[in-house]
């Protein structure tokens, strides 16, 4: 039979750490188990031996040595213990004063420079006519509506808007080369294709 489950309780019993009811249960087990009885006897003997050793007083000079060292320590001038807190306090006060002086004497922030007024001129929207003569804006894409339900082919047909570039305030010296942009709208509203090409039809 394994008595491992009893060992801790036997150890507590040996030191008198069990309540009366619990101790009685362990005592009943001890009456039936020689191994645990031997364990309890060993534990009691060792605890008694340890207590006897501990009860032996140390030599008086060991206590006196400690007292002497403590009193000598206390008799030392307390300069270090007193000076350092004052030093820290003084350093903090000086630092705080410096920060305060810097903040108080700091000139006001310079006024913001006068910035030239920039007037943005909205670009002129040029309009062009498609083959049917409908006006198509560069900003608003219109879908031509015909009478009757449009066919699938018609729905898939890309709507083309021809956009002319906005007039430049200062035309470049180089030869004008109008660039055309075609906005291709697909069935997917999230997909828009821009096609840039020069007048001669070369892609850029």
């Amino acid at each position, binding site marked *: 039979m394994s008595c491992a489950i009893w060992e801790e309780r036997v*150890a507590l019993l040996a030191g008198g*750490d069990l309540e009366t009811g619990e101790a009685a249960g362990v005592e009943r087990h001890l009456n039936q188990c020689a191994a645990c009885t031997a*364990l309890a006897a*060993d534990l009691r003997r060792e605890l008694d031996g340890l207590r006897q050793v501990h009860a032996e007083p*140390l030599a008086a000079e060991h206590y006196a040595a*400690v*007292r002497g060292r*403590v*009193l000598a320590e*206390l008799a030392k001038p307390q300069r270090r213990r007193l000076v350092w807190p004052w030093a820290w306090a003084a350093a903090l006060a000086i630092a705080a004063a410096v920060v305060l002086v810097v903040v108080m004497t700091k000139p006001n922030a310079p006024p913001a420079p006068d910035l030239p007024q920039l007037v943005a001129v909205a670009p002129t929207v040029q309009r062009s006519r498609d083959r049917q003569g409908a006006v198509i804006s560069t900003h608003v894409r219109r879908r031509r509506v015909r009478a009757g339900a449009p066919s699938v082919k018609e729905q898939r047909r890309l709507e083309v808007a021809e956009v002319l570039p906005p007039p430049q305030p200062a035309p470049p010296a180089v030869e004008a080369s109008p660039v055309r942009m075609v906005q291709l709208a697909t069935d997917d509203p999230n997909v828009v294709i821009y096609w840039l090409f020069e007048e001669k039809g070369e892609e850029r």
Partner: protein
Amino acid sequence: MKTLALAAAELGDEPEGRDATFEAARAGDRAAFDLLMRRHERLVLGTAYRLAGNLEDAQDASQEVFLRLYRNLAKLDAANLAAWLYRVTVNVCHDARRRRPSTVPVDDAPELTAAGDPQQSADQAEQRALLLRSLRMLSEKERAALVLRDLEGLSTAEVAGVLGSSMGTVRSQISKARLKMRDFVERYSRRRL
């Protein structure tokens, strides 16, 4: 069983905390503080000796404990002084051990058998040394619990208060410590045979 209250009474601490010596020491009277140290030196040095395992470290720890006592006199209550001293002693010894681990490794224990013979094994001095060595085989917490409970005679509740643990934890530590101690002694005895 000795309790902390009984220990305080033995040491001259009145439960009301109106200990004239304590009050005088608190007022800065060095002679009164010396008397206060004399009252508690066995508690402090004796406990530290069992926790540290050697006298030199125990004296260092005791010095630190009394210096802390002096610095904290204004905040302390004489009625709780014994518990405070136990707690600080345990903490100081624990800190010292962490800073400077024990120089005696666990494997040194069988060296006690070096010059012995079977008859000497019954020698009281050797048994005494063996028991003290077995204390060093314990973990910090187990040793503290066992020293306070079995050697200093505090109740389980008082040990729990000093160590800041629950009573269940202290009971577990005490029982494990006793079993480890017994195993160590038994192993040692087998090696001798």
